[in-house]
């Protein structure tokens, strides 16, 4: 469904390639994990898929194929039809990723405004329905709230609602739980699992936290310094890591201490 | 020295050029600026670069002298405003506390007022039409804005690591303030100086134009413009040359400020 072929990205202000030749596939309905420390190139890879790469400030090559269409070299107008419609993104910090001056409901339904001909009332009904699906209580009230009136966990649910409202083929999750408390984190992971089962959406889950990835993903890929060093079934990678770097990452997972995990 | 961008380069050249003329004007002018020996209302020529006025005085010489007065007042004003403002801002920003709160509330109230109005009030209290009162009034008016800029910069640097380590090594407060922090606030202070200078030039010119700033026998560009307005039909070059001198002076310094801000990445 999504296929990355030999992706290279290099920013003009850096002398090292941020992504140095990554090839990688996500199948339909799969939850893929992408793990690595900050600076490993995982976020740049995700941004390339989401079309958020600042094209003027970097050079890039390779292909990113979504059902056969090359996202890396498509022009902006074509990309705009893909964004939101076929690829939904959930970012790390829900508070700053939401427009502070727009009602949550309007942000949740924005994708419908951009990609469908639904009327305002239809969009509103759909938004409330989706807010309910991400397990927010009183969705009608949440719809009318501004971001600062909700908690981080509630906002992240709303962000997920905004990303899935139109049922995109691919959901990109860029560290969606990192900024949240551990209990909330667990709830969000459960929600994502449920959504994956119900809609059969593919997800790419990006995290520096192996533990979280292990709970959620069926497949995992590990990145280091712009390169993909290991990939495979999650259990396989965990019990039988091949690469030195993966071994170190796994060894670093705190086993007993279940407190909030910082970056 | 980081590289000079286009704004900075153009600004420095323009301002440098004008400064040379102004400094020259302190010592030498082509004619005596008060002598009335040429013909009245002569158009600009090689003998009289900017022509002559209604008394037959050489306008170029008068502009040189006037620009000197304006320039001098602006520099003195900014010096008063910057030194006192930096002192207040540094102390309140560094030590914080209730003094900080009170001073900054007063500051808020004062900066909310247009500088000319405040300066006019002070001038009317001190007595209009005297050069030193203009400097005092404008200087006082510019203290709050400098204090605010400095305070923000000092408060921001109070807990930075190199300040902490200086403190651990036993540096005194005053050493930390003036040796460790002050040089690092230059990114903010230098552009503030250029903005202050321009405000001072414009404010002085306005007040002198109104006849409550610098008055004869001292000449300033603002007062000369009010003279020029009355003979606009006979000698339009008088108003034009005086006005353009003000514009060039402010434009040049403005470009320097823009260049400085861009160099330190304040403006994108």
């Amino acid at each position, binding site marked *: 469904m999504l296929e990355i072929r030999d992706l290279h990205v290099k920013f003009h202000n850096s002398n090292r390639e941020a992504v140095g030749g990554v090839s990688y596939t996500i199948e339909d309905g799969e939850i893929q994990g992408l793990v690595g420390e900050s600076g490993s190139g995982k976020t740049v890879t995700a941004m390339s898929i989401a079309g958020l790469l600042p094209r003027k400030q970097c050079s890039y090559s390779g292909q990113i194929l979504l059902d056969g269409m090359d996202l890396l070299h498509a022009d902006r107008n074509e990309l705009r039809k893909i964004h939101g419609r076929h690829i939904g993104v959930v970012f790390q910090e829900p508070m700053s990723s939401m*427009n502070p*001056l727009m009602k949550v409901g309007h942000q949740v339904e924005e994708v419908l405004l951009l990609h469908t001909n639904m009327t305002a009332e239809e969009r509103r009904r759909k938004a409330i329905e989706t807010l309910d699906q991400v397990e927010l209580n009183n969705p009608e009230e949440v719809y009318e709230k501004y971001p600062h009136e909700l908690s981080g966990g509630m906002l992240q649910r709303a962000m997920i609602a905004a990303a899935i409202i139109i049922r995109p083929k691919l959901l990109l999750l860029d560290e969606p739980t990192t900024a949240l408390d551990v209990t909330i984190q667990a709830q969000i992971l459960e929600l994502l699992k449920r959504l994956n089962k119900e809609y059969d959406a593919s997800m790419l889950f990006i995290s520096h936290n192996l533990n979280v990835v292990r709970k959620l993903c069926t497949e995992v890929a590990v990145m280091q310094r712009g390169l993909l060093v290991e990939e495979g079934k999650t259990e396989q990678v965990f019990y039988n890591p091949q690469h030195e770097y993966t071994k170190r990452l796994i060894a670093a997972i705190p086993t007993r201490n279940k407190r909030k995990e910082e970056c | 020295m980081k590289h000079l961008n286009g704004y900075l380069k153009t600004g420095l050249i323009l301002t440098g050029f004008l400064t040379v003329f102004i400094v020259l004007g302190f010592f030498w002018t082509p004619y005596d600026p008060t002598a009335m020996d040429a013909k009245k209302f002569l158009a600009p020529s090689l003998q009289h670069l900017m022509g002559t006025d209604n008394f037959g005085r050489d306008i170029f010489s008068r502009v040189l002298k006037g620009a000197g007065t304006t320039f001098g007042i602006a520099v003195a004003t900014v010096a008063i405003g910057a030194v006192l403002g930096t002192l207040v801002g540094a102390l309140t920003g560094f030590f914080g506390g209730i003094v900080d709160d009170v001073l900054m509330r007063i500051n808020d109230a004062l900066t909310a007022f247009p500088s000319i109005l405040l300066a006019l009030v002070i001038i009317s209290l001190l007595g209009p039409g005297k050069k030193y009162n203009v400097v005092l009034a404008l200087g006082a008016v510019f203290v709050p804005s400098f204090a605010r800029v400095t305070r923000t910069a000092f408060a921001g640097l109070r807990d930075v690591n190199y300040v902490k380590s200086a403190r651990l090594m036993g540096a005194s407060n005053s050493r930390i303030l003036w040796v460790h922090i002050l040089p690092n606030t230059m990114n903010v202070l230098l552009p503030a100086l250029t903005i202050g200078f321009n405000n001072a030039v414009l404010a002085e010119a306005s007040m002198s134009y109104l006849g409550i700033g610098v008055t004869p026998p001292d000449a300033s560009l603002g007062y000369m413009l009010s003279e020029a307005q009355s003979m606009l039909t006979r000698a339009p070059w008088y*108003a034009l040359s005086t006005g353009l001198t003000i514009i060039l002076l402010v434009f040049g310094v403005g470009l320097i400020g823009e260049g400085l801000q861009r160099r330190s990445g304040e403006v994108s």
Partner: protein
Amino acid sequence: MKYAARRIAMLLLTMVIVSLLAFVAFDIISGDPATAMLGTQATPEKIEALREEMGLNRPLVVRYGEWLLGFFTGNLGTSYSYKLPVWQLIAPKVGITLCLSVISFLLIVVISIPLGVRSARYAGGRLDGAGTAINQLGMAVPPFFTGILLTWLFSTTLHWFIHGQFPELTKNPAGALKYLLFASVSIAIPRVAMTVRMLKSTILGEMQKNYVRTAISRGNDRKGVLYRHVLKNALVPVVTFLAQTMAEIVAGGIVVEQVFAIPGLGRLLVASIANRDYPVVQAIVVILAFWVVLAGTIADLINQQIDPRLQLGGDA
């Protein structure tokens, strides 16, 4: 509602402080108004009689209270130089200065907002540097110089208005507004330049924020990002800036009224400062200050409508 009430209470408090400062400062500095009115040759008895008549022998607080009330009752004392009630001098001029400020303000808003948005959209482009330079040049143009050029062009040469003959606002409003329009242009030029610069840097700053990334990821084009998301967020600092601009318009107005010979408050203020006519100066300063503080209050109230986060923590 609570916010509005608090904000208005603050406005009143500020005005009390400002007026108190003005009153005390002028009271200390101005010396004896009775001497000022009668001249130094007057006999001590005469001066004492006038002092008694003017109520100058009463305590400062009582006189301040009476003076403050005067802004509502119209009793603001007597001008030294015109020997007329201050209120009678000021009243006809308030409207003129108000009109001048409002026209200038509208000009600035109407011109600078579209220009600012445009310059932000084309930031980094080929004309960006030239735009910045023109902007700096605009800021360098003193309003009184523009004023002189405009009177020269439109009055002396083209006779579109007659310099020095300001039509009465009530009898010939169209003529008066036309006259004021020229003055407004000269006030507006440097302010437009500053507002454009401010708007541009605010929009560019907002463009760096995370929510913009979210908006792009949903498939918004540049226009959608700018108009649906960024503009509203950029508005709050711009509204605050425009309120400060109102203060500068008032200041610019003082000078420009002189250039165009507009019989407004500014012109009276300048004349009164030169004459040391303190009762008039005092009253005008407080009125202009009120106008400025009021603009700030209105800006805060507007911002509170734009940004719901300002509901509780709103400060001055």
